[in-house]
């Protein structure tokens, strides 16, 4: 009697596992941690991650604890120990415990302004663009290890919306990683842990059922890539980025039903997950149509491969005005016959600066 009950329970659990398979994979994947952007402020008197000291707060460190015989330890404006006042010893032992992060140098700032340093990971040798309040303020090239660092000086104290994106070796852009930040006068704010989402693209806009569609892009080197296909039932595919960060996933369309689908990807490295990439659409149908290059992107109203103030102004011109057929085709993003806040919301989502 008991044995049969046990068997029933086991069967029931197995059934639940099978029935809820996709979700189970999802739950397992959630064991890794979403990459967290960390903000530390050098100049607030509190020792935070990546700082050895802050102002007069030396965290109990002294010259002798750092291997010197005597002297006065102080703190540099970059929140690193200043051992110039320490006597007769060596800076051995690596006692500071600073880890891998080295704060960028402090550049003198104007009165009433602050400095913000951004560090994170993109793709090897890719262009990383930083936006401040929706306008491009800096670009840099990530190293061959995909790490990048941008410093902004003389930023007027106040709150800002900063955004970062990267462009891969094929010219595809990542999704915009946006975060609000308050800049305080006279201090250095360090924004670390930026993990840019992978880029994503497909080789076909329509694929004949049974054929393979290539989903590819670039991510942080050697990361594990999860490709998510949004259809009636979500499908999760796994692949790995190579040493230059390129990845390729061949999707067998036999696995998915006919119709429109969306694909997204994310990278996992050292138990940290990147944000989701942009979504690319494709159709499983009765014929195969290769993807055309050079088509205007969504919300790119003037077709300059950017979504910025110019596109905003074009939409603002048509806002609450009767649309010409040409405006209907290009400016009306949700095709409801008018320009309203929904179209602006779509534009904000696809913003590149």
């Amino acid at each position, binding site marked *: 009697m*008991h044995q049969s*009950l*046990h068997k029933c*329970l*086991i069967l029931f*659990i197995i059934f*639940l596992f099978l029935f*809820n398979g996709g*979700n189970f994979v999802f*739950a397992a994947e*959630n064991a890794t941690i979403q990459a*967290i*952007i*960390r*903000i530390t*402020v050098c100049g*607030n008197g509190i020792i*935070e991650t990546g700082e050895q000291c802050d102002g007069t707060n030396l965290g109990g460190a002294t010259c002798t604890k750092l291997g010197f015989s005597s002297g006065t330890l102080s703190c540099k404006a970059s929140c690193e120990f200043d051992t110039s006042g320490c006597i007769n010893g060596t800076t051995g032992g690596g006692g500071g415990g600073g880890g891998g992060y080295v704060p960028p140098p402090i550049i003198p700032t104007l009165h*009433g302004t602050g400095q913000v340093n951004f560090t994170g990971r993109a793709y090897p040798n890719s262009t990383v663009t930083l*936006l401040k*309040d*929706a*306008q491009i303020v800096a670009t840099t090239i990530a190293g061959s290890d995909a790490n990048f660092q941008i410093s902004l000086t003389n930023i*007027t*104290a*106040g*709150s800002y*919306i900063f*955004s970062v994106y990267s462009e891969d070796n094929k010219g595809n852009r990542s999704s915009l990683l*946006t*975060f*609000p*930040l*308050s800049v*305080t006068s006279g201090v250095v*704010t360090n924004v670390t842990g930026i993990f840019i989402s992978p880029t994503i693209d497909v080789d076909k806009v329509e694929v004949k059922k049974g054929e393979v569609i290539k989903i590819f892009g670039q991510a942080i080197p050697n990361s594990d890539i999860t490709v998510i296909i949004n259809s009636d039932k979500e499908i999760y595919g796994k692949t790995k980025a190579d040493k230059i960060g390129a990845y390729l996933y061949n999707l067998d369309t036999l696995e998915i039903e006919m119709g429109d689908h969306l694909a997204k990807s994310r990278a996992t490295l050292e138990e940290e997950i990147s944000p989701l990439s942009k979504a690319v659409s494709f159709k499983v149908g009765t014929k195969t149509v290769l993807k055309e290059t050079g088509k205007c992107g969504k919300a790119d109203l003037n077709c300059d491969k950017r979504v910025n*103030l*110019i596109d*905003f*102004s*074009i939409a*603002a*011109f*048509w*806002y609450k005005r009767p649309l*010409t057929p040409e*405006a209907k085709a290009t400016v009306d*993003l*949700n095709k409801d016959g008018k320009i309203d*806040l*929904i179209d*602006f*919301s*779509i*534009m*904000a*989502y*696809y*913003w590149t*600066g």
Partner: protein
Amino acid sequence: MTDKNSKRKKIILHFTLLFYLLIFAFCITKPIKTKAAEIYLKSSQLEYSPNDIFKVEIRLNVSAGEKVTAIEGKIKYNPSDLKVIDFLTGNSILTFVDQPQNNEKNGLITFSGIIPGGYTGQLLGDPGESNLLGTVVFQVLKTNNSLTNIQIESDSRIFINDGQELKTNLIFKSLALNIISQELVFNPLNELESLKETDKIPPEEFKPEIVRINGQYFLVFNTQDKQSGIDHYEVNILKENLLGQLIPLQKFTQSNNLYHLKESDLNNIIEVKAVDKAGNERIATLYPQIQIKWYKNYWFWGIIIMLLSIFTLIFKYFRKDRFLH
């Protein structure tokens, strides 16, 4: 003995059942992600006197993982208790689509704007709040009411991601203020004046651009002021004279972010002045976009005329000389 055995078996069975149930719950339970956004109002005090001038901040909160891309806000107040003095956009995270409007009669303030890239909520460690949508400056009127409410209308709208309207889990928090009967005679340093007083920083640097829309040329520009906010923009068209001096073709004209240009303006220097509420200014200059055609260049014609005059004079001189001989 058999009784003891069956008891033990029962306990084991219960534990096994509990174990399976726990596994079941662990496997199928996904973390519930609630999509929620909140607009709330904040003032420095909760009690004001008639004639008092004070600020009410409109702020936004979102649940983790949410991306707010656009907002349409409607703020209702009692016009017999309060009067709107100003709407400050300083430090706002919005790029305004509809500039804030106040309907004094109905006591309704409306505004709409986008957050390019989306607002995803405050980050851990952010030393400030970074969620300001705008600031309304009110003046308390002489009223019999001892309590006044400023509320966010329920038909205010929040859009997430690519144009999806958030319809559930919207929280609009109103602000209840006490009005004390003792009238304030004069307060030279009210919240608005002290903000203007401390604002010595001009608006942020910006770069105007020319765009062609529907066959017409427009000058587009936008900047921010982190203290009192942008008050207005002015546009000036300048032309270089023969001596290289810049002559204004018109006085600074007040404009919104979209300024209609004549085709001839494209050959000229255009200045855009951003003025904040405290009167600080930032000027951005745009140099001619179109290379001036050679026949439209004054210098070219000047040189031609000069050369022709010299040649005429020389020719006349030699002719005269020949006749004399």
